[in-house]
């Protein structure tokens, strides 16, 4: 009989949900009662909506418990570990019986996330047991040449997962063919898109997958030095990366004659970002590594020819690197089995917004947005009406509900005007205002524009001003046309991806939700009731009990009415602060 394992998910999101307290509680109990079980940590399994998660593995099988706070932790240890009576009510996933939450896992194919949530990310042994560094072992044992490796990556059809979708193998060929005694590879972990956390989870959950991917890339391209550029907002990811690098050095996977290959000297270090969205753009990222302001440089010359410190450089993003070892290990054909004709393999999405099952999912390319939202995601919060999904963050766009059968692959998504992006998928319902959404993203890019190109610097500002005006009820006829014109100018005349894509959220919302813009401009109404200046608060005659709570709380004394009498809001005085709406206990304040 093996020892029972109790595993607590300690990713950033789990910790935010209280998993650390759960862990400490179990630890304290174990020490106090001298209990015989193995307590371990893992990272995010993707089921963020059920955090904190505790998995118990015993002789029978595995049980994943969801929503385990400190009290429930004591309960499951008591019942399951001591008395061997699993508490099925709390179980969200198990290999022994079906649960309602199985739909979250059923259609997922985990390649990049293969070990996330299953291993202790700070243990090299556990990673190795799951196959880490076996691809490098294969390369060494079978003496695979660089050409064979690159051909495998080409055959797999892997495309850049950072959003661009450029074929990874091709990128490697360019960098390999550049003549130089000094070359670099970079892992872009500057995940800046608001609403996206795929890379964070991957780095926190399985850092060795990324390291091995980079080692394979370095060997194939002929590189001595690798850099991981990680945003400073991810302290846990940086910590675990540094632990993993140290372990890999000790074990000889990094350093001189790395992985036992004579003459292959390669090492990696982590460079912390300093908070600039534009540094996710490859040339700006390299400027930042060199210690300059993170401003993009003109291309050509491309990084493959002249990159970091003026030397040939290959940049791929976290998810791309994590796919590479799997491809080498299992074979390109195996990878290309998944996906569509031009987009092979899987894609990780961060599923958030107004959705029941928010979390991290990895699905084969070609799955429809509808399936992702309604099958994996469990549908819309409070069963409200599904309005749109936003893909690709500030560079992407909105895809409306009626186009939910669009499949996720690079070309289908691009055809809608959105982009695949790095994988942030934010779900919106009837209570999300699309004009406000566009304004939100423009506000972001306007602040994050590095200021190098005039059109991006000034154009986004002018666009933001117009959008702000519209959401405040001061929109004018012709504003939509002006926005469109500015959008094309900004796209055409910006040097890097930030400016070239910044207008996308505006263009797609105008394309699919023009009626909402018109309602704001012409009728001075916000159909989703989000833009405060455009909301009218009125008392519902039938529901008002005359309790006077609204009148007492109104900061400008706009509400009149005697006790037990119908109240009335004076629209000339009302400042639309919404206090009455939140304070009313009888739902008697209506929004018009």
């Amino acid at each position, binding site marked *: 009989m093996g020892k029972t394992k109790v595993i607590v998910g300690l990713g*950033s*999101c789990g*910790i*935010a*949900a209280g998993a650390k307290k759960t862990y400490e509680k179990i630890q304290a109990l174990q020490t106090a009662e001298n209990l015989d079980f193995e307590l371990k940590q893992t990272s995010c399994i993707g089921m*963020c*909506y059920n*955090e904190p998660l505790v998995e118990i593995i015993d002789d029978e099988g595995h049980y994943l418990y969801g929503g385990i706070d400190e009290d429930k932790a004591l309960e499951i240890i008591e019942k399951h570990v001591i008395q061997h009576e699993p508490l099925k009510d709390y179980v969200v996933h198990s290999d022994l019986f079906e649960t309602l939450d199985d739909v979250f896992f059923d259609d997922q194919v985990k390649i990049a996330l293969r070990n996330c949530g299953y291993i202790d990310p700070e243990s090299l042994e556990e990673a190795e047991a799951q196959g880490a560094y076996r691809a490098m072992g294969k390369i060494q044992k079978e003496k695979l040449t660089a050409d064979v490796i690159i051909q495998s990556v080409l055959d797999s059809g892997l495309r850049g997962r950072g959003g661009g979708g450029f074929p990874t193998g091709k990128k490697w060929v360019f960098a390999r063919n550049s003549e130089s005694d000094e070359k670099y590879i970079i892992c872009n972990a500057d*995940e*800046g*898109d*608001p*609403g*996206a*956390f795929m890379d*964070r989870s991957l780095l926190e959950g399985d850092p060795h997958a990324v390291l091995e991917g980079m080692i394979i890339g370095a060997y194939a391209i002929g590189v001595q030095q690798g850099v991981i550029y990680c945003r*400073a*907002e*991810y*302290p846990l990811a940086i910590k675990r990366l540094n632990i993993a690098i140290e372990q890999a050095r000790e074990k000889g996977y990094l350093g001189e004659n790395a992985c036992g290959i004579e003459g292959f000297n390669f090492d990696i270090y982590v*460079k*912390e*970002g*300093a*908070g*600039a*969205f534009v540094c996710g753009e490859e040339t700006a990222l390299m400027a*930042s*590594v*060199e*210690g*300059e*302001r*993170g401003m993009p440089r003109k291309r050509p010359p491309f990084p493959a020819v002249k990159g970091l*410190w003026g030397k040939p450089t290959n940049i791929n993003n976290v998810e791309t690197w994590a796919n590479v070892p799997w491809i080498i290990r299992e074979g390109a054909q195996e990878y290309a089995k998944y996906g569509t004709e031009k987009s092979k393999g899987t894609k990780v999405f*961060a*599923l*958030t*917004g*107004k959705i029941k099952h*928010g*979390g991290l999912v990895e699905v084969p390319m070609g799955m429809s947005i509808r399936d992702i939202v309604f099958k994996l995601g469990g549908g819309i919060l409070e069963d409200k009406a599904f309005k749109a999904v*936003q893909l690709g*963050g500030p560079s992407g766009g909105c895809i409306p509900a009626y186009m939910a059968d669009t499949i996720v692959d690079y070309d289908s998504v691009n055809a809608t005007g959105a982009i695949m992006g790095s994988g*942030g998928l*934010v779900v*919106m319902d009837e209570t*999300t205002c699309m004009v406000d959404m566009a304004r*939100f*993203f423009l*506000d*972001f890019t306007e*602040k*994050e524009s*590095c200021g190098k190109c005039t059109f991006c610097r000034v154009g986004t500002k002018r666009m933001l001003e117009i959008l702000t005006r519209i959401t405040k009820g001061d929109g004018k006829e012709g504003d939509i046309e002006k926005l469109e014109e500015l959008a094309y100018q900004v796209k055409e005349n910006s040097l890097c991806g930030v400016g070239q894509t910044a207008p996308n959220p505006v263009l797609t919302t105008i394309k699919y939700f023009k009626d909402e813009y018109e309602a704001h401009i012409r009728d001075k109404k916000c159909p989703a009731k989000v833009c405060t200046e455009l909301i009218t608060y009125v008392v519902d005659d039938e529901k008002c009990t005359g309790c006077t709570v609204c009148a007492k709380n109104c900061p400008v004394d706009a509400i009149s009415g005697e006790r037990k009498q119908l109240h009335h809001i004076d629209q000339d005085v009302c400042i639309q602060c919404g206090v009455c709406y939140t304070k009313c206990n009888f739902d008697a304040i209506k929004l018009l």
Partner: protein
Amino acid sequence: MRISRIEQTKTFDVQNDEVDLSLLDPIIEKYKNKRGIMIPLLQSTQNLYGYLPKQAFPKLSKETGLDLSDMFGVASFYAQFRLSPVGKYIVKVCHGTACHVQGAKALTEVIEDSLKIKDGETTEDRLFTLESVACLGCCSLAPVIMINEETYGNLDGKGASKIIRNIRLEEKTK
């Protein structure tokens, strides 16, 4: 790390802030004569003082050979760097997409009210600094705030002001 970088309206007497510059020596020693040191050098300095004191610049420049104007250029470009002192607790309210959709704006307003400062400012007792950040990467727990290294998810206004109140109480009883 920014959404908005708002100028400090309440200015502290930064010039008279006692800053022990000798603390910088080991940092300078570590990075001297290497390339690409600008950002790590400034990051280490900020880790030391909580912000980049004006007095530190000439010393860093003189001893590492970095250009003063380049240093200021970098320090003012990246959102991470602060040029004025901050509170003991830095309250970062996430304004990522998911948090925005779930009401982050209202959360900032509540915290502004309970701290009696505006976004980007520091309380007079230098206990709290309020900041808006783009995304903390905990989107499924939106709306989220982070106080120093601690993250709090699934918040509403009440929850947020309770957390602030608790920290205040803790500080008072110390």
